């Protein structure tokens, strides 16, 4: 991609954040400025200039696309004479319906997965989740954990790298004569057949580094030493001068499994527990309305967000030769924000139809909190009820409150 195309792509990406009515004009201005900068100021960092389009686009989105969550927190906004102020709806129409919300999350998750599979560092980590947990690896060294350290952080490839091959050849005067993945058919958990187990060579060598082409050497004695329950192994021979000096060493993949999803789910469960504790003793809180549909929606949303956070963190930290140790930090912060969004989204949905509540109206004023209720009122488009969110907690309205509307109100709504 040429620099010009790259800079235009940055501006077009930023333009997606700009509200539709102003997008064309906004993009025309930035493209015009870009053109003039490239002609008149060759020494300037054009990329940095283009990246500055994002704060501009964000500003327009916050201030011109209508109601923003931040504006709710602006306490210095004077109330209107009537004490009631209505806002345009949030630009969240795409997420309003629960089905569309889940569909968008699924698309985002698939996008993260696709990006991960395209990244050379993230791909083997993602594919490693498909490996049999009791696959056995051959270690060319006497200590099996050396490979795990040498391969880098969170790199569970059941193999050793080509660089390690070269290093071993140079320093250990050894030579790998073969490296193949086998599936054992003669081994089963708890019992072992007499004699040498049958070996079946699999054609899929994609798990092996750099498609090492070597001569296959069958050593029927080696599988006999495998622990029960082993489903397969990677076999290689490190030859020191002659075959007699060769030795095999096996380590189990399950000794160093990739636990990304396993790390995210407990974090989500903990956050959910924390939320439950925080909402304990609030009889008016509509979060206590547990229905199967609502619980299923929450579970599906949580699982999709866990996938997005786990794979997205991996994508973001997959640079260089291995996954960066920053992965854990990104994962932690990502989980925090994801849980926060899940909770906020769930609280802002109608407990009956699960659609996002709309038509926010601010009522009252902070200076008159002793006289009247002060906060924001949301309404379900289908007329199922209204949600009152206090801006300043008072004795009589400390938490948000859901009020159901009866069927008699149905005529006022879209239905």
């Amino acid at each position, binding site marked *: 991609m040429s620099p010009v195309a790259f800079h235009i792509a940055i501006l077009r990406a930023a333009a997606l954040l700009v509200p539709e009515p102003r997008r064309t004009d906004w993009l025309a201005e930035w493209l015009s400025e870009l053109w003039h900068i490239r002609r008149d100021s060759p020494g300037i960092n054009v990329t940095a200039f283009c*990246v500055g389009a994002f704060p*501009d686009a964000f*500003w327009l989105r916050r201030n011109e696309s209508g109601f923003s969550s931040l504006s709710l927190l602006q306490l210095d906004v004077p109330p209107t004479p009537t004490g009631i102020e209505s806002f345009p709806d949030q630009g969240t129409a795409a997420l309003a319906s629960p089905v569309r919300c889940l569909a968008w999350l699924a698309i985002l998750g698939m996008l993260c997965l696709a990006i991960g599979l395209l990244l050379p560092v993230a791909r083997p980590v993602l594919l490693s989740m498909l490996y049999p947990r009791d696959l056995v690896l051959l270690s060319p060294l006497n200590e099996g954990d050396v490979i795990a350290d040498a391969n880098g952080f969170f790199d569970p490839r059941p193999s050793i790298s080509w660089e390690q091959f070269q290093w071993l050849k140079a320093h250990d005067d050894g030579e790998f004569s073969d490296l193949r993945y086998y599936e054992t058919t003669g081994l089963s958990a708890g019992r072992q057949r007499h004699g040498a187990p049958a070996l079946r060579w699999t054609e899929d060598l994609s798990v092996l580094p750099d498609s090492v082409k070597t001569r296959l050497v069958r050593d029927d004695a080696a599988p006999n030493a495998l622990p029960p329950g082993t489903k397969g192994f990677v076999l290689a021979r490190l030859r020191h001068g002659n075959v007699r000096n060769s030795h095999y060493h096996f380590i189990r993949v399950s000794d160093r499994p990739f636990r990304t999803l396993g790390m995210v789910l407990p974090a989500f469960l903990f956050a959910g527990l924390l939320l439950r504790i925080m909402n304990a003793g609030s009889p008016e809180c509509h979060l206590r309305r547990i229905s199967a549909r609502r619980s299923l929606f929450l579970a599906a949303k949580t699982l999709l967000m866990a996938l997005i956070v786990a794979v997205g963190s991996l994508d973001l930290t997959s640079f260089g030769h291995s996954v960066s140790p920053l992965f854990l930090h990104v994962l932690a912060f990502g989980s925090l924000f994801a849980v926060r969004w899940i909770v906020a989204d769930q609280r802002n949905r109608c407990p009956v139809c699960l659609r996002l509540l709309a038509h926010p109206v601010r009522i009252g004023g902070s200076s008159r909190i002793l006289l009247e209720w002060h906060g924001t009122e949301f309404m379900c488009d289908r007329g199922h009820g209204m949600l009152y969110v206090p801006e300043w907690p008072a004795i009589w309205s400390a938490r948000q409150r859901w009020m159901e509307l009866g069927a008699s109100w149905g005529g006022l709504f879209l239905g």
Partner: protein
Amino acid sequence: MATELKLSHTAAMILKAIESGHVYGFGVMEVTGLPSGTVYPAMRRLERDGLIRSRWEKQSIADAEQRPPRKYYTLTTPGRATLEASEKRYPLLANLIPIAVGGNA
């Protein structure tokens, strides 16, 4: 009212730059030394508050010079009043911004 607005130093610099004849975004960036991510949102805010006004250059002028048209910014009357108030608040403001060639200051 606009004259009662108290501008930040950055916003006052941008207003002063426009008043000095630096009438498009990159010109303001160059003369103030501020990054694009600061200048453009600040100009949006100033325009929203009615202190500056933007207009597109005529297409015929741009066509004659074989370049895309530019968007120019000018001060409004409340903008000038606010700038005068800001100059009292930030006395060195005028020294920071040089007058552009062909500027109107």
